[in-house]
């Protein structure tokens, strides 16, 4: 499916979805409330059938006080990509898990929790994945500091 067509299809599914610019593949910003329902539609809609969650990660926009989640979707059937962006408040990043839509989301969400502290509602097993269970802080946040860190090189 062409990029424009793809975007308009997504917008027909979720009117609140807006185009996310400065991304080099079709990308939509959606409100966080619509996440699990929209994701399920994206997967099940025959014209879209995004059956694979390639990667799920987050970007910490420290200055704007928000964390932006990125869901990179791929359809093995139609061979097209879509990136879905969800903005969360940096102080209380809570979103509903999509682990029942794509199995792999369970672990990718754990990683995002581990690195950014994003909390996932109705996640079956939310715990740290790469760091120890008792680790303090979320390392990929821009303001993360610990005693092992060296100063950034000039």
């Amino acid at each position, binding site marked *: 499916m062409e990029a424009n067509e793809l975007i308009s299809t997504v917008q027909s599914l979720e009117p609140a979805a807006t185009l996310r*610019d*400065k*991304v*080099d*593949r079709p*990308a939509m910003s959606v409100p966080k409330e619509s996440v699990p329902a929209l994701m399920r539609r994206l997967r099940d809609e025959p014209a879209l059938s995004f*059956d*694979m*969650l*390639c*990667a799920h*990660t987050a*970007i*910490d926009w420290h200055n704007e006080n928000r964390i932006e989640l*990125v869901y*990179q979707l791929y359809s*093995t059937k139609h*061979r097209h990509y879509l*990136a879905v962006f969800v903005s969360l408040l940096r102080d209380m990043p*809570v979103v509903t898990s999509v682990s029942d839509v*794509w*199995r*792999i989301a*369970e*672990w*990718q969400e754990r*990683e995002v*929790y581990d*690195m950014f502290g994003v*909390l*996932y*509602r109705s*996640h079956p*097993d*939310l*715990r*740290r*994945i*790469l*760091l*120890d*269970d*008792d680790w303090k802080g979320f*390392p*990929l946040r821009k303001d*993360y500091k610990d005693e092992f860190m060296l100063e*950034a*090189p000039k």
Partner: protein
Amino acid sequence: MSAITVTSLDERIRRSIGADGGASTTQEYFVNMGPQHPSTHGVLRLVLKLDGENVREVIPVLGYIHRGVEKMGEHLSYRQFVHLTDRLDYLSALANNWAVAKAVEKAANIETNERIETIRTIVAELQRIASHQLWWGVFGMDLGAFTPFLYGFRDREKISDILEETIGARLTMNYIQPGGVMFDIHPDFQRKVKEFLTYFRPKLEEYETLLTQNVIVQERMRGVGVLTAEKAVSMGATGPVLRASGVAHDLRRSEPYGVYAKAAFDVPVGRNGDCWDRYWVRIEEIRQSMRIIEQLIDNIPEGKHLVVKPAVRTKVPEGIHYSQVETARGIFGVMLVSDGKDVPYRIHVRTPNFNNLWTVTETAPGWRVADLVTIISSLDIVVPDIDR
């Protein structure tokens, strides 16, 4: 809004034991497979719930070799970041380098020439063969046959030598740079690659006789650890693992990069998604890679090997840039978030092994400990790639 609880590994194991604290399940017990275990290929830890020899549940525990590559990347220039990707999936170092180079080139509008792309394709395919050779040897060893390991390494050595002559390193190559390759190919490169291909073809037949056709190996793999196509896709598996499940998703074919569009090759796919299919797909991929190299090796066009001066710090325009390549283990993806500087604002690497590993939680339960070893080995896991 209900409270979201964050649990711990102990909690997870307690849940696995059951609400009654294991009183009703005296048969079952937990063992740690790893972090130090001969067949977890590094420092991977699997908490196994066993019933005798039968695996009931697999809980992978990660992070023993987490180095924070993404955090480090936020302080390194794009060119410097390349050398960190060597250390993710060290058996596909060139493909990983390529992913970063591709992302930067696309973002910064750097036009590479045909020569660069051909060299990149050839070395990446050579390394794919080397990676599969190593995997073949290790797979044999995981099944209990030690000799294939040495044979695999013996033949991998030939490729290592070829790459070493051109690149100067055997494992952490840091060869494919944004805007070209670090060195031009060595004058002997083409001759040696052709020599290798003639050397290796009969050896591959030996591989087939030694393991593929061996009745014990076949029985160990047949029907073991079946991963259906739906599950493989839902679990985000890529590479040979996905293709063995019958989904012919190969980036080299679906979105050709480099000069893959010029080369004729077949995509091997499996039937059932069992260990046999995963094994066969990899062996066949060696053949296809040799085909690709054969077609390209005599047709390396003339040109410069580097189009951007290496001393220049490449600035990438603001925005989010993706690139993906097909490594020996699956799709390696890079997401660059740039704020216009020469250092990424955020860099995310999507590593194939992270997703591939989790299929083991689906395929292993119900099989025996010995089969779990086969399944892990058939996934061809490189642990630093999982932990990043």
